[in-house]
């Protein structure tokens, strides 16, 4: 199995190599990067390109590692016992399989996405060491060992809110999706809006990268915000000239709310624009 890229997701050569290393060596791939650089999309793309099912596990601050393996639904069993249901004799009927179990027992290889692992408790990654390394775990209720038939391809994304433990990192491949440069960004936009006017795109990219260079922004606009903004520009049918306005350098780009998501950033930006006007 080899990932050769996809027509609707721009993969840089280093990312492609990291994905293929993870696939070949059957080890998890940890993906980090600024928000909106397509970390989650990667798993979806790889699953689609390889034609294997994708199992997603979205992590919240309350998620426990155990929930990825299985959960024992004691409440249903208690209720069934009250109703005299025959199923109640077998505890296995009340074991709810988690994402990892589903992937381990699948007939064919699968792709698992463990999304935003840094949201969970600080010990969460440590609780999954053996499961991700050996791809097996023990079910205490039914005394069985669940072992992966096919080692799934595991993608883990992180937003760097918490540091991950070394023991965990050592078992993964790592890739940092860096913010795309102008060329890559152009090809990303081409993939998403094949019939975008060339003039508009050039102007938009220029405005976008200038905006990103403003020092002191709390949240720099990312790829996904650029795509949203382009969508809006196209929907409103804004001509490229409106973006350029070179004679009036201080113009506020139209629909900038799609790029700046933070009130303070918008204020800062407007203030800078105002100052630029003033100085002229």
């Amino acid at each position, binding site marked *: 199995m080899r990932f050769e890229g996809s027509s609707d997701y721009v993969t840089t050569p280093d990312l492609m190599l990291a994905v293929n*290393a993870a696939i070949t060596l059957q080890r998890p791939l940890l993906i980090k990067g600024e928000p909106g650089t397509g970390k989650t999309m990667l798993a979806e793309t790889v699953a689609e390109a390889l034609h294997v099912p994708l199992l997603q596990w979205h992590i919240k601050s309350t998620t426990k590692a155990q929930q990825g393996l299985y959960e024992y639904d004691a409440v249903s069993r208690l209720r069934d016992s009250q109703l005299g249901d025959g199923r109640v004799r077998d505890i296995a009927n009340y074991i709810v399989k988690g994402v990892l179990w589903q992937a381990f027992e699948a007939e064919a290889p699968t792709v698992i996405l463990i999304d935003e692992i840094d949201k969970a408790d600080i010990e969460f990654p440590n609780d999954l060491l053996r499961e991700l390394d050996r791809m097996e775990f023990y079910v205490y209720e039914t005394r069985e060992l669940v072992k992966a038939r096919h080692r799934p391809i595991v993608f883990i994304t992180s937003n760097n809110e918490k540091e991950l433990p070394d023991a965990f990192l050592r078992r993964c491949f790592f890739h940092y999706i860096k913010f795309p440069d102008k060329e890559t960004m152009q090809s990303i936009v081409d993939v998403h809006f094949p019939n975008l006017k060339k003039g508009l795109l050039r102007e938009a990219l220029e405005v976008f990268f200038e905006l990103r260079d403003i020092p002191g922004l709390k949240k720099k606009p990312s790829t996904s915000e650029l795509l949203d903004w382009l969508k809006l520009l196209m929907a409103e049918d804004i001509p490229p000239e409106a973006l350029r306005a070179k004679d009036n350098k201080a113009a506020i780009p139209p629909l900038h709310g799609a790029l700046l998501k933070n009130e303070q950033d918008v204020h800062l930006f407007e203030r800078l624009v105002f100052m630029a006007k003033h100085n002229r």
Partner: protein
Amino acid sequence: MLIDFFLHLKSAKLPVSTKEFLTLLEALQKHVAGHSIDEFYFLSRACLVKDETNYDRFDQAFGQYFKGVEKIPGLEGEIPEEWLRFMTQKHLTPEEKAKLQALGWDKLMEEFKKRMQEQKKRHAGGSKWIGTGGSSPFGAHGYHPEGIRIGPESAGNRTAVKVWENREYRNLDDTVELGTRNIKVALRRLRRFAREGSAEELDLDGTISSTARNAGWLDILMRPERHNKVKVLLFLDIGGSMDDHIKLCEELFSAAKTEFKHLEYFYFHNCVYDHVWRDNRRRHSERFPLWDVMHKYGNDYKLILVGDATMSPYEILQPGGSVEYMNEETGAAWLRRLLDAYPHAAWLNPEPERLWPYRHSISIIGNIMGNRMFPLTLEGLERAMRLLSK
């Protein structure tokens, strides 16, 4: 194989482990990467570097180790002929061009190959062979005297050489908090779980016993979820001699802030007096009287003072001893008041423990604290947390 490379990374202070190195070898064995050095660069980075803050260090170490490797004899086939032609055209004087014409391109290439053979013998290990000696056809034609690097240029588009030599990840270094994880883990010792609030969770044990008592009829009991309910009052010394410890204190503060839900923090300078403040920029306008703080936060708060306790003893023992203003009561009196209000208290001192005996003020404060002063190291932090959680 590649052991020197691994050790080189290690000596460049990259946190690489043997397991990761073995993974890299396994990946190479399975032909994950092709034979180009770019792919090897990407692969080794994915295997060995697990934090983007280390990318830059890795780029440098990789560049150092593989300097000149891209020109190892044997790889000469990768240098396209067109390129050589182009380069010679670009850098030759008209006379030399004429000479080149006289020599003929094929002849030149032959010479080139011959020269390559010699190079292999002389520089085994692959150092650069930048052309020298203007008289030889090669030196004169092929390579600019100032040393043009042919490796990177030759492959045309983005090669790895460029990637690591660009050092694109330079500004990632040191931007992320480092080392807070250990501090967080140490702070965990303070956790106190308690059940408070609305009953949302099934109390399984309670339900079972209650159902049994109910002669088998189901009686479901609910209970509130468990929360970490430890409350922490953090006082930080700021300015003056504490400037040397800013990084450490920042790490402690950022770890504490994410670790404790109920964290109240205040700043003081050198010693606590009748008021503290919360925002250093407005330390003179927005003050919180210490009395108010003590009344507002109950004695279930755990008190942690962070400071180097290094000052003149007068600042602790004398009314009016404060360096900042005229204090009516001594720092010692205020400190004792704080300790009376909060029985669970500890002082964390960023100064190394071995220096403490030489500083009079440290021993005074240590006495007032009842020897509950700990060094601000992981080990000291653990000791302090263990004491506070008792």
